[in-house]
């Protein structure tokens, strides 16, 4: 994930923006340029708090403190599966529930669920198996109230698998669904 750093003229203005709109990661990305300081020097008159004489430059790291998506319970975005299984293990149910809660609270936010498999088997069949896993996570999100319009399920099959795994600990890393927020 990019460490996006904003250099802003008025911290208050930025914080207001963050609070007033749902966190849309695509927008964070888009505004990752350094804002021209001169432009916010009070001559627009749009925001009194920004039109002070003194400009205090503060750096905000959106990936840590202020980004809801970066909160500990949402930072985990990988759901791992057993061999030849699309059942969501007990230990990942809370993870899925945290993302469901966020998505329900932010109905404009979209996610892509990317299914993956280990390298054993054929490319296309593994693509289908990876898809089954992404559908399993989607169904779990649906049950928790997330709308279909917020979710796309896709599969990479074995295409991103580690090659030449020697044991199941290695294969296990490949059997997963990645939850990818739009724009990230």
């Amino acid at each position, binding site marked *: 994930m990019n460490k996006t750093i904003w250099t802003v003229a008025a911290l208050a203005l930025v914080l207001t923006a963050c609070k007033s709109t749902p966190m849309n990661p695509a927008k964070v990305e888009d505004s990752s340029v350094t804002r021209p300081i001169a432009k916010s020097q009070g001559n627009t008159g749009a925001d009194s708090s920004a039109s002070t004489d003194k400009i205090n430059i503060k750096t905000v790291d959106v990936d840590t403190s202020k980004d809801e998506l970066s909160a500990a319970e949402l930072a985990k975005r990988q759901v791992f599966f057993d061999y030849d299984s699309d059942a969501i293990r007990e230990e990942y149910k809370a993870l899925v529930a945290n993302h469901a809660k966020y998505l329900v609270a932010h109905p404009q936010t979209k996610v*892509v669920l990317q299914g993956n498999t280990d*390298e*054993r*088997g*054929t*490319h*296309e*069949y593994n*693509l*289908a*198996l990876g*898809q*089954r896993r992404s*559908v399993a996570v*989607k169904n779990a999100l649906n049950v928790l109230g997330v709308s*279909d319009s917020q*979710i*796309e*399920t*896709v*599969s*990479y*099959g074995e*295409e*991103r698998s580690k*090659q*030449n795994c020697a044991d199941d600990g290695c294969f296990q890393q490949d059997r997963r669904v990645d939850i990818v927020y739009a724009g990230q």
Partner: protein
Amino acid sequence: MTLNKLFVIILVYKQTKMNKTVTMQNLKNGLIHFLSHTIGVGVLVWMFALPAQAALELEISGGSAIQVPVAILPMAESGAAPSGSRLHEIISNDLRGSGMFRIINTSGMPALPTTASQIKYTDWTALKAQGLSLGEVQQVGGNLKVSVQVMDVLRQTALLQLTYTVSPSQYRHVAHLIADQIYEKFTGQPGAFATRIAYVTKVGKRFTLQIADYDGFNAQTLVSSNEPIISPAWSPDGSKMAYVSFEKKKPIVFVQSLYTGERKVVANFKGNNSAPAWAPDGSKLAVVLTYGANSQIYTISADGSNLQQVTKSSSIDTEPAFSPDGQSIYFSSDRGGRPQIYKVPASGGSASRVTFEGSYNVSPRFSPDGKYLTYIRNDGGAFKVAVQDLGSGDVKVLSTGSQDESPSFAPNSRTIMYATRVGGKGTLATVTVDGLVRQRLSEAGGDIREPAWGPAQAAPK
């Protein structure tokens, strides 16, 4: 090492005397490095650096193949011949690699004829040659005029008289065309040497879809990407390639013209778009779409219109393949629990099961003559190429690897090419339908996977 491609030839000496191994490669072409010495019962690993891209290695296993003894004599070549292997060497490699011919060693012969009138037939009957080919290559303008005669040694008559006028870049292609003619004359079956294959290479993080001659030479890149490319499928006329690209962070089906480079999105629906398979008339493709659920089979016109759903199940249905008559689509499905191959009318309807032996059979592909179905069987944890005789129902496991994938038939229905892994790296291999003749193609520096053998057709000019 600056040469970008290295080829590993492994000579496997089987313990049984009936088995023999022959390298197809012209060993003169740049032996760089003796890599390893004899290991165990006799595995020799050599590395060769070659000016061209690839090498097929031949391993004939089993002793029951009837081989026609033929002498393939050097051509009289005037002027500067194209670099690399000579015409007669390419023809010899083709014929030897088919497992159907024994190439007579002519190195001890005092004078080799280049015209029919120079042939002393007693020399050749003494060597038990049944056939003998000779001829010449002339420079005509900027082109090469290749004239070949193939003689019946016993009857002392000409079996074939062939003349080709081509650009020098078609040198290897002409050799393959001649080998096809000789193959057909002696076996009664068409050859498949003047054919092409498509495959995907992965070097570092770079994926490329390449087209090459069947023996791996003359490789050209059709498309390259930092995201995966899978499932290349030739259009029946050999002019277009369908494939799946992840360049937009999801699988999308493209069709690309080989000659114009024109590239069209055929299927880009919500979810996955994958597993393209052409109908025999080239008008439409079977594809696998998911939307928000499991993989299901659809047909779609080659221009992306007229989408129709073929399978409707809550299971995985994927890897469609049209039967040669276009009436049925065979596919992999886990609707019965474990993955097996089923068939369904191409217009949709109820599916019936095709494979019953083994607990895991996927990736069906037909022989062009419709007599065989090849697929991948998981045999106790090892994935192997199997072939099913659709007449008798007999099934034979043909390959010996543990991660063999993507079987596809040669246009003459005699040989199957597939992906295998050797030393942790993907490579291509072939095996004949009878399981007697195996070859391996290798490229160092990256993985090769997902081979698709192109249809019979002339190469473009």
